């Protein structure tokens, strides 16, 4: 597991938002967060080796009141800035009418600690 990802999970778990890792809880009540590592990224070079290997993942936060948005964004983005540097983006912000929940999704990339692999 990339050490940057482990640091990210640890930092998110220290916030007031209850974060679950690699999990997905249905119908969260109140504020709830999910962080997961999803796919390998990285550039391929001519001989098939991967360089600059990285992983892409996402952070999701669900919450009930629009007034909570800035607090959620500041909390998560401060941690993403600190751990992922510039390698993150806000991917979506939606409102689920049926569930009455707001949902913010960020996508991040973390470097793999392993050496180049064949």
């Amino acid at each position, binding site marked *: 597991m990339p050490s940057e990802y482990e640091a990210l999970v640890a930092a998110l778990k220290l916030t007031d938002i209850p974060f679950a890792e690699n999990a*997905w809880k*249905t*119908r*969260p009540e109140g504020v709830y967060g999910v962080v997961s590592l*999803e*796919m*390998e*990224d990285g*550039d*391929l070079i001519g001989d098939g080796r991967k360089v600059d290997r990285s992983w*892409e993942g*996402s952070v*999701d936060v*669900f919450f009930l009141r629009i007034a909570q948005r800035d607090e959620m964004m500041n909390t998560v983005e401060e941690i993403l800035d600190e751990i992922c540097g510039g390698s993150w983006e806000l*991917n*979506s912000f*939606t409102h*689920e009418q049926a*569930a009455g*929940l707001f*949902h913010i*999704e960020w*996508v991040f990339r973390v470097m793999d600690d392993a050496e180049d692999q064949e």
Partner: protein
Amino acid sequence: MAMEMSAEGLDGIGEMLGALEEQAEGVAARGLYEGAGIMASAIVQAAQGIQTEKFQGKRDSRKPSPEEKEIVLGAAVGIAKFEKNGSEVNTSVGYQNAGYAELAGKMVAVPKVVNAINSGTSFMKKQPFVRKARTKATAKATAAIRQSIEAAFDEIGRKYQGST
């Protein structure tokens, strides 16, 4: 003692550089269009892999329905209008302008269906097929853009070769 140096054919090079500058925007746009096409194809292909399940009554969680997947597969993956930003030309590829489709007798916005599948909801686990396509196709699209630009510049170079 100073050594005299001279270079010949600079007029031709100047003309070529002028042509490069003049045509740079068009060259970049053609390259971008090729790269965007590769990205759009990758998204269409990734959408085939969306996992579905039939509606089974009220449950806390579910996968997208086969009908929702059909909406995504039937929608056009668009290449947005190119935007100039200084020396850059930008665009986006996706379902932003895919319009509406009928789902269970109601009209739903296609981008909303795509977003629910791609980013997940409180009742549906995400299947980030658009991001997976981007990750998979970025290198190929970048190479196509580079190749297209290099080919165009070679052509301009050949055109002015005779005058240098």
